[in-house]
């Protein structure tokens, strides 16, 4: 069943650019990775990072800067962005993990605002205008995949690697301790662990993955702007995660796809798109607490049980 689903998803992912505008698909994939990074913290450690956009945006600028000013290959540019975000994640984690709940959220929010203004003021970012003309450099320095159709497959490959990486982290000895911390941190401490060290590591890993998404986004759109660092993006990723289903690997991926596709559809209505988003969030919180994927899973289980009876 599970393998069949993965197989279907693989076939669909490979065939989609023949039917759908590739840039939209790539945009979805960027946010699939971004939402997964956020879910790593909220879904598996119980940390609400209300500044996740700083990792996305910073990496977008760093990737752009590296690709514009040096001749390195595409994957090294994206990796550079992700690593810088990981360092930022470790630093923010070091300061923030001693607090929990709303305090943690507010500290991460404050950091994100700081990063926003630092990037606004910095010379290399282009300030209000953003950073234009980021090249889609050759992959491994040899493969030219700069047209949007072939670039989609590059982005798809990075997405798959990022998701596999997250899967490994979640289903690792480390991931098991994270789940225990989410449940009862005091108890984990009493068993001889240092929970804050695990949380700092989780922040670092999450920032790295968010950074991958930022690098992807910078090369997909070939520019980086302050929007990527803004708090509205930090808020949007919360919507994606809750809409899709918290604490499942596939939930935030589905949520990201729905939100991006919806924004694209509703773009012609301008500000109404935001209102529609708000309404959907309220409906999900009221009626689909487990998110789309969570509710679907529960439905399948119920049907199976009925069959078994």
């Amino acid at each position, binding site marked *: 069943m599970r393998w069949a689903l993965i197989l279907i998803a693989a076939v669909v992912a490979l065939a989609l650019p023949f039917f759908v505008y590739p840039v939209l698909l790539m945009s979805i994939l960027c946010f699939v990775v971004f939402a997964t990074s956020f879910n790593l913290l909220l879904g598996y450690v119980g940390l609400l990072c209300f500044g996740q956009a700083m990792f996305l945006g910073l990496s977008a600028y760093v990737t752009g800067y590296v690709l514009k000013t040096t001749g390195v290959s595409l994957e090294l540019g994206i990796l550079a962005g992700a690593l810088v975000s990981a360092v930022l994640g470790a630093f923010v984690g070091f300061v923030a993990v001693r607090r929990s709940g709303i305090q943690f959220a507010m500290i991460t929010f404050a950091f994100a605002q700081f990063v926003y203004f630092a990037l606004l003021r910095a010379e290399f970012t282009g300030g209000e205008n953003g950073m234009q003309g980021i090249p889609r450099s050759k992959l491994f320095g040899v493969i030219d995949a700069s047209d949007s159709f072939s670039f989609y497959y590059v982005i798809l490959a990075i997405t798959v690697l990022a998701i596999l990486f997250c899967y*490994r*982290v979640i*289903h*690792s*000895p*480390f*991931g*098991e*301790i994270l*789940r*225990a911390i*989410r*449940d*009862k941190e*005091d*108890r*984990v*401490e*009493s*068993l*001889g*662990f*240092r929970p804050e*060290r*695990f949380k700092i*590591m989780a922040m670092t*890993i999450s920032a790295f993955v968010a950074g991958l998404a930022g690098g992807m986004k910078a090369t997909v759109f070939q520019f980086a702007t302050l929007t990527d660092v803004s708090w509205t993006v930090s808020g949007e990723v919360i919507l994606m995660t809750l809409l899709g289903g918290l604490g499942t690997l596939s939930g935030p991926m589905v949520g990201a796809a729905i939100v991006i596709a919806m924004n694209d559809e509703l773009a012609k209505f301008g500000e109404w798109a935001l209102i529609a988003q708000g309404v959907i969030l309220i409906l999900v919180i009221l009626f689909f607490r487990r998110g789309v994927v969570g509710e679907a899973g529960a439905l399948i289980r119920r049907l199976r049980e009925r069959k078994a009876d």
Partner: protein
Amino acid sequence: MAENRDYALEARGIGKQFGAFWAVKDVDLKIPQGSIHALIGPNGAGKTTCFNLLTKTLQPSTGQILLNGEDISALRTSEVARRGMVRSFQISATFTDMTVLENVRVALQSKHGHAYRFWSPISSIYNLDARAMELLADVGLADVPHLKAAELSYGRKRALEIATTLALDPKVMLLDEPTAGMGHEDIEPITQLIRKVSAGRTIVIVEHNLSVVSTLSDRITVLQGGQVLMEGTYGEVSSDERVIAAYMGGVEDA
């Protein structure tokens, strides 16, 4: 001063101040190796604060705490756990989202030192499962390793908690009201289990249920108003006028 290893746990003049209020003041405890020691006292006597000081959940305002003669006053709970003293919690402290087996395995990971490996597959710690099953068998949970901890009955959750604690092979166990909130049918098995796991260990319990205290403990310290009222065997304590007065209604013989 020479280290004194006769005592598993020793408190020298420990106190805890909250604002102007001393919840615990000038408490001395000497708990010999291999004994079961109970802390009792009426509500508000400072039992839980005292317990939290010993486990290093709270930092003492005054005094020293020694574990096997080593000063642990400045250490954190996790560091104390690694030196062989592990606490339980008053409210059940199982990881409810995880299976019974996973609960114990988390604790086993603490000794194993692979816990930071985010790049290893979970199967790399399946070798801990055999030991986890042994521990579950010891507390009578071998039949439900794959059940979610949330689905266990209250009494069996406490048993799982003890199995999790035992996974660290602690020399000193501190149990915070192990029978709190239990019905009669659960109290007896847990009492027996505590007696069983006390072999080769030192145990400190905070307990309301005096019949449990009388069956388990070698010595008892009675607290009142944050200070030690007296210390002795159950017989001595239960016949002491001051203790009876402190409990107002008197201590009924169990």
